[in-house]
């Protein structure tokens, strides 16, 4: 195979993968604080995109204003979800919280369908679709922008978890009871993690909305996002980014080899295989924290 073509597949795969990471970072933030994969992250991402559109199209704000405002609104929404729904579940089995996030996802999807209908709307960020060449390699500009956003978020969260507030959040992830015993407000910490995940959802929603249009299909990003988060280790932000790149490359290059053999559609198969194999072979993922056992 032509090495340039292979490189192009790999690089564009990596960029797409970073966009999966952009989504998966939100999952990781909530997993860290609640030990639950947030099944509503897809719904949140879609709502984030719709809120940006509503502010930009229906209210008529410029995008540079609509996006930060949407971020603020979504932070409030995430924080509110803890207050209204999650608080009374503290101390209950994790599976209850998991089911709650599933219900939340269905609720968010139903609401967006009722309010904005099923027709796909375009984001129109104003990013040029002119091809961008890196040597001989063709790169999509929007994917590049999205990857940069993902890397910025990665850096920001890595720094955040080193701050005193971030250390408190990590303490909450470790032990709720011990956190309460030293005066850490577990409730507010979980609310903060939901707020931050919702902020991530807005950025993922804007980028993915630009790529595939804003409609119900945005919430289906959850499947690839979950695969990336699981491969990365569910509670590792760095893991989500590395796993995103890996999945993107494997998916893009692998599909190019497999598609001619099976007649197309092998992308989904590759993603499913990665998810299943990760759970079978390395359940705590590439960078996941595993329980410390002393002997």
């Amino acid at each position: 195979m032509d090495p340039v073509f292979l490189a192009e597949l790999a690089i564009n795969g990596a960029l797409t993968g970073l966009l999966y990471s952009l989504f998966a970072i939100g999952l990781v933030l909530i997993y860290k604080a609640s030990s639950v994969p947030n099944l509503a992250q897809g719904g949140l991402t879609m709502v984030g995109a719709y809120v940006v559109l509503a502010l930009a199209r229906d209210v008529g704000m410029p995008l540079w204003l609509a996006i930060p405002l949407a971020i603020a609104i979504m932070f409030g929404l995430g924080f509110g979800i803890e207050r209204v729904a999650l608080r009374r579940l503290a101390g209950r089995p994790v599976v209850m919280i998991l089911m709650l996030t599933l219900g939340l996802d269905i609720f968010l999807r139903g609401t967006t369908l009722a309010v904005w209908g099923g027709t796909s709307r375009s984001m129109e960020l104003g990013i040029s679709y002119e091809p961008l060449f890196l040597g001989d390699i063709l790169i999509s500009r929007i994917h590049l922008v999205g990857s940069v956003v993902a890397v910025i978020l990665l850096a920001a969260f890595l720094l955040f978890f080193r701050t005193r507030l971030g250390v408190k959040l990590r303490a909450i992830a470790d032990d709720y009871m011990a956190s309460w015993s030293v005066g850490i407000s577990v409730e507010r910490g979980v609310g903060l993690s939901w707020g931050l995940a919702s902020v991530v959802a807005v950025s993922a929603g804007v980028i993915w909305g630009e790529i595939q249009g804003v409609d119900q299909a945005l919430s289906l990003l959850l499947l690839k996002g979950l695969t990336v988060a699981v491969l990365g280790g569910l509670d590792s932000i760095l893991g989500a980014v590395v796993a995103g790149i890996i999945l993107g490359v494997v998916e893009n290059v692998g599909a190019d080899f497999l598609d001619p053999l099976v007649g197309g559609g092998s992308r989904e198969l590759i993603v499913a295989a990665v998810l299943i194999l990760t759970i079978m072979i390395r359940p705590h993922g590439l960078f996941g924290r595993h329980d410390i056992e002393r002997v």
Partner: protein
Amino acid sequence: MSMEDQTVAEPILSMNSVEVLYDNVLLAIKGVSIEVPKGKMVALLGSNGAGKSTTLKAISGLLKAERGHISRGEIRFGGTVITEALAQKRVEMGICHVIEGRRVFEHLTPDENLIAAAPLGMSRAALNAEKDRIYNYFPRLAERRNSFAGYLSGGEQQMLAIGRALVTQPDLLMLDEPSLGLAPFLVAEIFDMIKKINREEGLSVLLVEQNALAALEIVSDGYLIENGRVVMHDTAEALKSNSDIQDFYLGGKEGSNFHNVKHYSRRKRWLS
């Protein structure tokens, strides 16, 4: 009776006929009244399931996390009623509870464990001074300050749990079974340190222990809890020489055999 027991200090904590229900049905303590005088160390003794831990959780507000609540009675801390206050508020007021089983933040280093417990309002300089103070009390921790707390030994974890509590600047420190699962020399080391902190900083301490022998060596007063009730309250000296306490909790005096003790204890519970 020693000199310091003769002065009556005002209580920093008073608990008045407190009753605790779990899940609205299970009555865990049935009208417990205890007092901790300011600057003193008091022990809560009793066997497994007697209600000692529940008593501490009622005071620290951690009951809520286990679906328990105070159904009757009143708790006062420094004169303020705290019966309904949130756990977080009580820590701010100066109550810190070192919960049973150490429960350090395993995936954080000892340094980060201390940072996690520090109030966000504490200045960086004050936090560093605080860390130095803790490492000064427990030099073993300083050596391990950058490895995961989950990998520390049991004794080191207990020291860290106490240090983490001290960072919250408590006036009342409550310790639940700090000796659990530790070698006797470590128990002695930790108890010495608690005594030292109490002496040097005037910190009031409420200590829950099954290891009554070690506890009575360092406290001034003790309460004996059985079946959710206080059945005895006296000075440490008096408790140590009390024959019932000797039989049930200090390993028996000479001449009494296990069978007699068991029988007697059962009869006593029926009568109480």
